[in-house]
């Protein structure tokens, strides 16, 4: 997957979690926590959704890398390079 495709995939996961939010205005450089007020339970969800949908395993020490859309895509790009969209 390309970084663009990964971004779409993450957006899709976020849309599933926060169904009432409009994510069209999401700023890739601002933390999810601030923009969407996601809490630690929700972060666990992003991790588990990635595992469920793409079989990507994210070790706990890497959770901070999922802070914003920008950092998440950057972190996932090498991990998901071989997955077809």
């Amino acid at each position, binding site marked *: 997957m390309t970084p663009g495709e990964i971004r779409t995939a993450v957006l899709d996961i976020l849309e599933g979690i926060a*169904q009432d939010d409009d994510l069209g205005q999401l700023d890739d450089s601002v933390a999810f926590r601030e923009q969407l007020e996601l809490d630690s339970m929700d972060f666990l969800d992003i991790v*588990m959704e990635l595992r469920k949908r793409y079989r990507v395993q994210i070790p706990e020490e890497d959770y901070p890398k999922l802070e914003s859309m920008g950092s998440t895509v950057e972190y996932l790009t090498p991990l998901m390079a071989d997955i077809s969209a």
Partner: protein
Amino acid sequence: MYDTIIIGAGMSGLAAGIRLAYYDQKVCILERHTTIGGLNSFYRLNGRDYDVGLHAVTNFTPKGTKKGPLARLLRQLRFKWDDFSLSEQVESSIAFPGVNLKFSNEMDLLRSEIASCFPDQVDPFERLLGKIVEYDDLNQEIYEQSTREVLDEIFTEPLLVEMLLCPLMWYGNAREDDMDFGQFCIMFRSIFLEGFARPFKGVRLILKNLVRRFRSLGGELLLRKGVSQIKLDEGRAVGVVLDNGDEIEGRNILSSVGRVETDRLCLGSGASQVAKAGQLSFVETISILDRQPRDLGHEQTIVFYNDSNKFHWRRPVDEMCDVRTGVICSPNNFRYSPDDGDLADGVIRITALADYHRWGNLDEDDYRLAKIKWSDQVTAAAIKFMPDYRRFVIDSDMFTPNTIRRFTWHDNGAVYGAPEKILDGSTDWQNLYLCGTDQGYVGIVGSIMSGLTIANRYCLAP
């Protein structure tokens, strides 16, 4: 072999089930009753639907709110806010002799009521609010502090203390006389800082959504399949035995049936400690009126009343019921959308404290008579706090501690379970965890949160 077996198809079991099935676990919910919902179920009588439980969904926050339990559980369950179609309450009150404190989903109403009835308690009330906002759950030690001690230090007006305790104890206190401070904070937020709402179609709408989602994710729900034993192997739970003798194996077991009840499933009836179980049970008289309650001048959603300056929260000792305090609820008095209009029938429900032991020991005829007698007495006590509606009643029923027992199997028909809560859901056995009432979160939103929290923590954590 299941990944997780869940005992009980109440709110907490269904919520945990959805969460686990969503992440591809093989999950089975076992329910002894013929229907789902547990304490929050419904039944039909004379062609009408009656709710057991649900007066109001607590923790109401408006669409778009991102914080708080309601928003959190919607995200966790992947529901939209509109799926629960909640309509807000009109207004509620705490009614003591000569003093009435109104409150609504806007905190400022209660604030201004306190300012006018108890002017010198305004600052203490703000201090209490500060403490409640600060309070962080899941610390067992702070959780168990005595609420009465905390409040007595803050307030100089004992009547206000009683009045604040009354609704919060009614809607979620398993302990007699006093309340764990943690529970107090949770209930205060859910009732005064967030608020009341109800789906036009009642609790069945929420239950239908939960069960449909669980099944669509591949979860199995087995009704009339009570669990009679939890199988143990070297300190670990490994499966269950059903009432019909069948055995089912599971890697993890979540029990929503209560802590004393769960211990008994593990150790057999010899180990039963009914004394540790909760003591507080209810009767509720439900009257169907030939008109809407507002047409007889009753517009409030819920009234928590008490007939003296001291609020007594105990199992009645001399009588089958204690009618000194009660809750008047009218499901009509919510702000339903114009499309829905009014509920077809006017309904007044009145809840009072009841003694499970006295109700449980009656034969059938005496039970029927007791229902009539106490229905009259409870109503007579309540109409001191609302217009007399007795002439307009066209049908009625009463549920009792026996009903609660039948819907939940809780020892003593205890509505809020055992007084001692196990906040981390752990038991003496590995792979066996408590969710629901005895984990500490009560109410509809609370028990759903409980199911989610425990499922996440023990059955899903990577």
